[in-house]
C-alpha cells in the first residue's frame, strides 16, 4: 500500500521525507510510475510538482535558472527559454511524445539519472549546476552511472542553472532511436562551439550517450575534431557494437551540422 503527500514547500517536502519509511519524491512521475498500474509499489510519495519554488524560470546576470518541476513542453514553448537556450528545447523534443512531455519534468530527468537521457546530455555539455535543498553541485558529478546519481537520501532537486558564459556558446544535438514516440535513444550526440560557431571552446566540446554507462565527455584537444576525439576514446569502451559507433559518429556529424563550420569537417 502506498501513501501520497502533497508538499507545499521545499522545507516541508524534506522534513516529510525524514519522517517516512519508504519516502520518494514525485514530480511528473513519467519514469517513476512506469509499470505502476500493474505492479503497485510500496512507497510514500511526496508530491513536489506544485511547489512554487520549483515552478520558476528566471533569467538573470548569473544565467538561466529553471525550476525542477518545469515540464519539457514548457521548456519547448517558453519563448524566453527558447531564445536563450534553444538546445534544451531541441533535446526535449526528442523525449517520448507530447503527452508524456506534458508531465515529464527537467528535475525528474536528473533525479532519474538515465544516462541515455537527451536532456541530461545537454545539461552535462552545458556544464549546468544542479540546485538542491542542500547545495549547489555540478551536474557532471551528479550522474554516476545508469540510473545512479550521487544525490543524498532526502536531497531534493530544486532547479538547474546554466551560466551566462554557457548561454553564449552554440550547441547542437542529434539522436538516433528505434521507436520515435516512446523508446529511449540508441545514441545521442551534443556538440558545443564558440558564439561564431567557428572554433571549439576549451574544455568539453562534445558529449555522446548510448555507448557507455555515463555519457562520454570529449575534451577539446588542439587540432582535433569531435569525431577524432570519439575514435580516440573508443579503445577504452568495451561491449559496444560497431553499429552503435557508426551511429554515434553520424549523430556527432549531424549535431555539428546544426552549428556547422569547418571545425566539424572530416579529415
Amino acid at each position, binding site marked *: 500500500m502506498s501513501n501520497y503527500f502533497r508538499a507545499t514547500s521545499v522545507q*516541508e517536502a524534506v522534513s516529510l521525507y525524514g519522517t517516512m519509511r519508504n519516502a520518494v519524491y*514525485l514530480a511528473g*512521475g513519467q519514469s517513476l510510475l512506469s509499470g505502476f498500474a*500493474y505492479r503497485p509499489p510500496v512507497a510514500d510519495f511526496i508530491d513536489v510538482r506544485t511547489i512554487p519554488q520549483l515552478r520558476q524560470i528566471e533569467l538573470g546576470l548569473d544565467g538561466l535558472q529553471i525550476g525542477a518541476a518545469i515540464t519539457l*513542453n514548457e521548456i519547448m514553448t517558453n519563448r524566453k527559454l527558447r531564445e536563450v537556450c534553444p538546445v534544451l528545447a531541441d533535446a526535449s523534443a526528442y523525449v*517520448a511524445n507530447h503527452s*508524456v512531455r506534458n508531465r515529464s519534468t527537467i528535475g525528474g530527468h536528473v533525479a532519474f539519472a538515465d544516462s541515455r537521457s537527451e536532456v541530461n546530455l545537454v545539461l552535462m555539455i552545458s556544464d549546468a549546476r544542479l540546485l538542491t535543498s542542500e547545495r549547489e553541485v555540478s551536474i557532471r558529478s551528479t550522474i554516476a552511472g545508469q540510473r545512479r546519481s550521487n544525490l543524498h537520501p532526502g536531497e531534493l532537486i530544486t532547479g538547474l542553472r546554466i551560466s551566462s558564459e554557457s548561454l553564449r556558446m552554440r550547441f547542437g544535438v542529434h539522436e538516433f532511436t528505434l521507436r520515435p514516440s516512446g523508446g529511449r535513444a540508441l545514441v545521442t550526440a551534443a556538440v558545443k562551439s564558440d558564439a561564431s560557431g567557428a572554433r571549439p571552446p576549451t574544455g568539453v566540446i562534445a558529449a555522446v550517450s548510448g555507448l557507455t554507462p555515463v555519457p562520454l565527455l570529449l575534451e577539446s584537444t588542439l587540432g582535433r575534431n569531435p569525431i577524432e576525439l570519439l575514435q580516440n576514446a573508443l579503445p577504452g569502451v568495451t561491449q559496444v557494437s560497431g553499429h552503435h559507433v557508426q551511429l554515434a559518429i553520424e549523430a556527432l556529424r549531424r549535431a555539428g551540422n546544426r552549428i556547422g563550420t569547418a571545425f566539424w569537417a572530416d579529415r
Partner: protein
Amino acid sequence: MSTEHVVAEFMLNGRPIVVSENQAEPLSTFLRRAGGCSSIHVGCAEGVCGACTVLIDGASVRSCLSVVGQVHGSVVTTAEGAGAIPAGKCLQEALIENHAAQCGYCTCGVLMVGMELVAESTQGELPGESEIRRRLSSVVCRCTGYEAIVAAIIQALKITHEMDGK
C-alpha cells in the same frame, strides 16, 4: 502540514469528485474502478501505448502515469465527457464519418490527443499534417494505419476553425 488525510478534489467530466483515501492509486485504476470511465484502456502501463490518455486541464496526460492525488484542483476529461465539449463533439463526429476506428482500443486515446490539438488551434494557427502526425505518435494504433484518423482530425480542425471565424 500536508498529510495523507487531506483530500483530493477535482472535476471529472463536469462532476465534482472528492477522494479521501488512497490518493496514491493510479489515476487509470481509479477512473475505471470508481469513476465509471470504461474508456480508460491500460494497454502497457508504462506510458508507451497512449490508450489510457485523459485530458487534465486540457492537456493530454497518461492516466497510468499519474496518481489520483496529482489531479487535485484540476479538471479531468475522458471520452465519457468529450461529447459535452465542442472540440470533443466535433472530433467524435469526424472520427465516425471518416471510419477512423477499427478495433477501437486506442480510439479514446486518439480522441483525447485530437481534442487537445483542436482546442489549441482555436487560439492560433491550424497545425499542419506533419504536426498532427507528430502528436498522434503518442497513441499507438495497430489497425488503421492512421490515415483515417489524420483525415478526421483535419476535418475537425477545419470545422472548428470555420465556426470560430463566424
